């Protein structure tokens, strides 16, 4: 595996952990150390972070069914032509 893929994988693991609820001060320190260790780390991290932030926009496509049973797999999303212009 190439280094860049490995770094991306580690960055994704950091982000998903930070996104969870067990995030501690010690974790934050460790993450900061990792980010500052190499620009390659930082760049991979902010790229994924930006994408994950933008994933919130999927909300715009949420079907207006408020009480979807949570065990239904979510349906496929379609972008309606002309939407959001």
């Amino acid at each position, binding site marked *: 595996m190439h280094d860049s893929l490995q770094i991306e994988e580690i960055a994704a693991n950091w982000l*998903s952990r930070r996104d969870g609820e067990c995030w501690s001060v010690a974790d934050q320190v460790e993450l900061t150390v990792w980010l500052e260790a190499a620009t390659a780390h*930082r760049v991979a991290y902010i790229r994924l972070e930006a994408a994950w932030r933008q994933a919130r926009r*999927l909300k715009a*496509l949420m079907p207006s069914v408020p009480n979807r049973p949570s065990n239904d*797999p*979510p349906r496929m999303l379609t972008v309606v032509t002309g939407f959001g212009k």
Partner: protein
Amino acid sequence: MCPPAAAGGVNTQRHSLRIMNAALDAWFVREILPHEGALVRFFARTWPARDEIHDLRQETYLRVYEAAAKATPRAPKAFLFTTARHLLIDRLRRQKVVSFEPGWDLEDLNVLIDEISPERCAGAHEELRALAHAFNLLPPRCRQVVWMRRVEEQSQKEVAAQLGIGEAMVEKHVAKAMRRLADALFGCRSSENPKGEAASPVREDHHARQLTN
């Protein structure tokens, strides 16, 4: 032991460094990442070893980021591609013995760079379409986790409980999803470009498609 004043100085320095980093990060996300599709296509056209493209992209990004930390480039896109070109030249010089396809040489780089069209993702709608497309290609369980976390904004704990999986597993799905979504979002479905080139030679794409069939 450090005198308090010195410790304070270090803290202030660290604080301003962090603010600087945040501004630089934002610049990078805004000015550089939207060109990822074009960048990856440029590498795909010019570099014979497809499995090195991810690495080339990453190396380009880090060079751009480090240069921007010293002075923000005025023309980010041009700077990005100049950096990419220099990187390829560096790599070529380093690896003297390589099996390139016939007819390929350093001079091609100049021509090819000029040919890069000023393609950009066609705004928010295109991005949303790319995002939805990538979302649809995620494996079902992974898709479900993304939906619950990002759209329904449920906590990790809630998602884990509802799906009957551990929180570590939720994190695993999230980690996988964000990589796929990033490829789709910044590569902007370049497979839909008129020449029909493979957009991002990024791994797992065909695999993802199989999963949905």
